[in-house]
């Protein structure tokens, strides 16, 4: 039996009259490579926002490794290993790539309150940064401010920042958006190469990536879980084809 790292129970979110998330009970297993797909506006991003504490649920709860984290603040969830990336890049515009990564690493190591010690002299931090830079193809732009990076590089940094948090659960909201086809595989293979005990939930509209990466898929439609199954099952599911996949299943 595999352990469940992340679980939601009857999670619900309403925006006025709109039910953006409807009674979702979802489980993410340890080490899972799980994809969440669904039509535009189905509530995938909202779901991630609920998991990470950006939005407060109207009802239901979120459990991380058996503990109820529904009331926990965002940063508390991150410190417990629940990390996300954003659909639209969220970078530190005034900092350069190295500084951005360094501050994330410092924070992860619990150094964030040290206020008299230089930020860059934690042992091994330089090697770790260098590793991240080359993994995500950022070594050619390492001292450029984030705001001046080309879009594709920004996208890569977006992911690198999350990976630098050493997550237990990584929530990826369309990580490949804007990354050119050629580099997508590399990004995804880098993500796939994360330690096996890291559980990953991927939101993506590129079915090539989803089918290659995930071993389990959930389909969200109109805020509610619509189907769940293996890649095989979902790609063959007629109902899923109808509402979401269209002809892409056999791509």
């Amino acid at each position, binding site marked *: 039996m595999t352990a469940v790292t992340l679980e939601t129970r009857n999670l619900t979110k309403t925006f006025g009259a709109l039910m953006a998330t409807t009674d979702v009970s979802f489980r993410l297993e340890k080490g899972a490579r799980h994809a969440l797909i669904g039509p535009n506006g189905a509530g995938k991003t909202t779901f991630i926002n609920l998991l990470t504490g950006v939005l407060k649920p109207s009802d239901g709860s979120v459990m991380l490794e058996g503990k109820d984290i529904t009331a926990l603040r965002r*940063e508390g969830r991150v410190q417990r290993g629940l990390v996300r990336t954003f659909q639209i890049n969220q970078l530190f515009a005034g900092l350069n790539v190295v500084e951005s990564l360094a*501050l994330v690493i410092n924070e992860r190591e619990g150094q964030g309150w040290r206020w008299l010690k230089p930020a860059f002299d934690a042992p091994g931090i330089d090697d770790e940064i*260098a590793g991240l830079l080359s993994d995500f193809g950022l070594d050619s732009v390492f001292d450029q401010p984030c705001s001046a990076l080309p879009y594709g590089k920004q996208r890569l940094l977006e992911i690198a920042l999350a990976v630098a948090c050493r997550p237990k659960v990584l929530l990826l909201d369309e990580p490949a958006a804007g990354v050119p086809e050629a580099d997508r595989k590399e990004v995804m293979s880098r993500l796939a190469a994360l330690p096996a005990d890291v559980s990953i939930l991927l939101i993506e509209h590129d079915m090539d990536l989803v089918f290659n990466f995930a071993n389990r898929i959930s389909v969200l439609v109109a805020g509610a879980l619509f189907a769940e199954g293996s890649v095989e099952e979902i790609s063959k599911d007629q109902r899923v084809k109808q509402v979401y996949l269209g002809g892409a299943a056999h791509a």
Partner: protein
Amino acid sequence: MMSVREKRQSATAEAVRSVMKRHGRWSRLEIGFWLIAVAAWFLLPGEHLILTEIVIFAILALSIDLVLGYAGIVTLGQAAMYGVGAYASGLLSIHVTGEPLTGLLVAALAGALIAFPTSFLLLRGADLTRLMVTLGVAAVLHEIANQASWLTGGADGLQGIAIDPLFGTFEFDIYGHTGYAYSLVVLFILLLLARFVTASPFGYSLKAIRDNPLRASAVGIPVKARLVAVYTLSGAYAGIAGALFTQTQQFISLDVLSFQKSADGLMVLVIGGTGYLYGGLVGALAYELIQDALSSVTPQYWQFWLGALLIAFVITGRDRPRQLINSISARISRPRQPGRLDAVTVADKGKPT
């Protein structure tokens, strides 16, 4: 044997190290600046009064820079902490002791004590909200000081402040000789501390919050707690500035708590540039000297020309002086900085062929 990938990675690590080393290093321009400030004590004895005022102004602006330039909180209420620091040290000298260093400490504490609860009011809301909340808090304190005239002397100012000689030896003279040396040393210490703070993990987390609070919290930074911390620290800075004012002038009026004071502090900081600690210094120096010169040429209408200068300054680009400083300091210190060259070679190496 190292693989190509490993080689590349170790070259990158080397470059990263050199970028990191650049941080927190004293530039020659900076050193020169301090040498000139010290030299001014010997060479310009007639200007010590205005220099003291500039230094105090600069500390006030520095305290604003900590919250604005590093944490992105705009404030129009720094006078609250400045004024409370000023009154605290003044009252201390009247009722307890006139020893100046104790006064500074008490004022720092008083400033922090005001800033801490205020900071919770600033955690939500955008620029305008923060401007107005800080302004409101300062205005309320101003009014309290006005009403409590039994304690503060009200609108007439606090009378009877007597500051002991510094270390029991150096009297605060009317020429400002002691005052300037004293304030300059305090400024130096505060700036040194601020340099450490801004180059620390804490400092970088502030910059992250300034640039993108949403992401900052998503990488585990406790945004609210950090903002409270830095606002409190800045309150202590402002309190010290207020105490220096009291001690060097031996007089306080309600103006230490006025909107004007907050606005001036913000203005000189913005003139000098935010986010590099020296902005307040540069701004205070420029602003005071220009105002002084203008008002001795035309005591009645100097504001007109000051206004025209401000407009011209903004239109031509406020970061010009900053760029100038950067380019000068780059030119001065280039031979000492091989990091940049490394970076270029690595960048070339980094390209897949």
